[in-house]
């Protein structure tokens, strides 16, 4: 195996950044050093934040106590708090954040639009609507029925939005506005049902709709994590097609990509990430929107990359989780989804202002 950082004339392309190229007779790869290092750094920060989140709560622990408990030692009481109560939540923050980041990267890349994330195009609204129907109309509030409803509602809505926006192909702008329209319609139907419900049921739905990971337990987390790993594997397998598809369908075809099946696979994977998270934790907005873009800016890569987006998503969700725990210490518990919506919305506004300014700069 030979590794080089300097390009060899006539053989390699100078990408303008340092690249590791491991080559063996069986496989070869091109690893952009900066992107991978920064992404790993983001991932490490996410894990650290997760550990910090375990220390916070009604019964505060030190970081040392958490470490000893996680390595198998420590008091029984600490073991219960750390392993049974707080670890699944911290793990959920990392895994769900990564999944949302992947979903956002896939959709932004496919729509070639920084705004084309699943939550913007109506997925969350559909999941929320199905859950409202399940809890308020059908009266079943168990974990599995809620999760199934969220999954089905989200998928159906995503399909509906896609079909409604389809007109000789999909265009990012149309997809987004159709998503807004469908969300508005479902949102007002939700509001109608919520005002007719008993106050306790309505608040249950309200909490679910705000998006919270604090009630995640190992029983819910284990299947979610297993599915999450499957999704991450699928995403890794499809990453190359995603990069080629960014070149346009014709160029991707000449590179040997089966364009339509690759796109279908990517859409299914992208929807699955959001569906899984929404089913387990409720709609957690804006991570999928923000993570790929922030990651792209930090790693200074040309397009969105799934790996760095996943790490950034994990970092953002654990940070929001930590913030919600910190707020709970001094004030009251805040659903983590509300924090991501508020911070993410402000980011979106900033993004729009910047785009508007740049747009006008190009065309005065």
């Amino acid at each position: 195996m030979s590794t080089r950082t300097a390009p060899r004339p006539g053989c390699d392309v100078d990408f303008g950044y340092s690249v590791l190229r491991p080559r063996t007779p069986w496989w070869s790869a091109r690893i952009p050093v900066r992107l991978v290092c920064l992404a790993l750094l983001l991932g490490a920060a996410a894990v650290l934040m997760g550990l910090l989140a375990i220390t916070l709560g009604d019964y505060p622990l030190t970081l040392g106590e958490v470490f000893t408990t996680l390595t198998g030692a420590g008091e029984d009481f600490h073991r219960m708090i750390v392993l049974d109560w707080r670890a699944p939540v911290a793990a959920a923050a990392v895994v769900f954040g990564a999944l949302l980041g992947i979903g956002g990267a896939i959709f932004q890349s496919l729509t070639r639009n920084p705004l084309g994330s699943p939550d913007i195009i109506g997925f969350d609204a559909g999941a929320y609507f199905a859950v409202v129907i399940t809890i308020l109309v059908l009266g079943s509030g168990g974990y599995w029925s809620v999760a199934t409803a969220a999954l089905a509602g989200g998928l159906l809505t995503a399909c509906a939005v896609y079909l409604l926006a389809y007109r000789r192909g999909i265009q990012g702008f149309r997809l987004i506005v159709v998503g807004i329209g469908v969300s508005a319609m479902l949102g007002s139907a939700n509001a109608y049902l919520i005002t007719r419900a008993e106050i306790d049921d309505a608040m249950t739905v309200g909490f679910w709709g705000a998006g919270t990971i604090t009630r995640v337990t190992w029983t819910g987390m284990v299947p979610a994590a297993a599915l999450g790993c499957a999704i991450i594997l699928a995403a890794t397998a499809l990453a190359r097609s995603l990069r080629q598809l960014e070149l346009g369908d014709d160029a991707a075809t000449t590179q040997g990509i089966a364009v339509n099946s690759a796109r279908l696979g990517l859409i299914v994977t992208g929807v699955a990430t959001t569906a899984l998270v929404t089913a387990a934790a409720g709609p957690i907005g804006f991570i999928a929107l923000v993570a790929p873009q922030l990651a792209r800016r930090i790693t200074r890569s040309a397009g969105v990359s799934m790996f760095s987006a996943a790490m950034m998503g994990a970092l953002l969700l654990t940070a929001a989780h930590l913030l919600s725990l910190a707020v709970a210490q001094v004030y009251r518990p805040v659903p983590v989804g509300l924090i991501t919506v508020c911070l993410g919305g402000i980011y979106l506004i900033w993004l729009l202002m910047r785009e508007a300014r740049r747009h006008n700069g190009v065309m005065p």
Partner: protein
Amino acid sequence: MPVDTQVPAGQKMAAPPSARQALTRRRTLGLFTLLAALGLLLLTSLAHGSNSLSYSQVWTGLWVRDTTEASLIVWELRIPRTVVGVIVGACFGVAGALIQALTRNPLADPGILGVNAGAGFAVTLGVGFFGLTGITGYIWFAFLGAAAATLLVYVIGSAGRGIISPVTLVLAGVALGAVLNGFSTFLTLIDPDTFRSIRNWGLGSIARTDLADTLSVLPLLLTGLAIAVCLSGSLNSVTLGDDLAASLGTKIMRTRVLGIIAVTLLAGGATALTGGIAFVGLMVPHIVRWFVGPDQRWIILCSALAAPVLVLAADILGRVIARPGEVEVGILTAIVGAPVLIALVRHRKASGL
């Protein structure tokens, strides 16, 4: 109706006399159809409700004001909500027409642009921290919130110079709405009492508002309408683009500032009274443009008549379909209006962000 003053300069040269006559005929016909529909709906709104009174009971109740059930229902419930429906309908319609003309954006609507969310957030703050109770207490908070949201969205959307891309403005509104709704949700979820008193408010209903409250906001709404009517001439040239408008002698800056003030007054006041009825301001100007053409004076006049028709029709439908309960008018307009939005983006030649 004198034809020459109704057609803008650009159109007069293009349109041959016969086409001009056809347009005038279409406009006149449309105007009278709208007036007739409005009159019919006013009567229907008095006659039908979740309590099924017979027409003769309504008729006697209307003329003999006493303490019978019919008279009370007509005078205390149906007349106020009909009046409120007409007033806020006209305001939302004109606000929509104005903001679509000012931003040259066919997708603009006060509800979509986050005005409802601003009002809702301010009311939630008022209920949660200042202990407001009842619609009367909400009104001024809602008005301030709605006005602030309108200004904020406009500032965000116009961060660059020149025209604002339709999507940027819509997204700015949606983003602002999401943030404000997030804060409101937080404030309601931490306190069941706030949740209970606030959850009905943001739906958009004309049934809860009483006439005294309407009267206290009316001066603002009338000012807004008056500004809109005065501006409608300059709006014709603004829609041609800033450069052309300036060369035609229009004071662009003044038109824009006054226009935004009018939109703020109209959308803010109407949202304060109802909790926000989305999509009326989006749909009505589009429907009106089918028969009056691109002249803003006609669009604003006919929007002021067509929007109450829509609001009253939705309100009457909401009373009838869910007896003995009601469906709020804002819910019905959203369910009708969202497909209109989708149809608009499907048929327009869209531009990427």
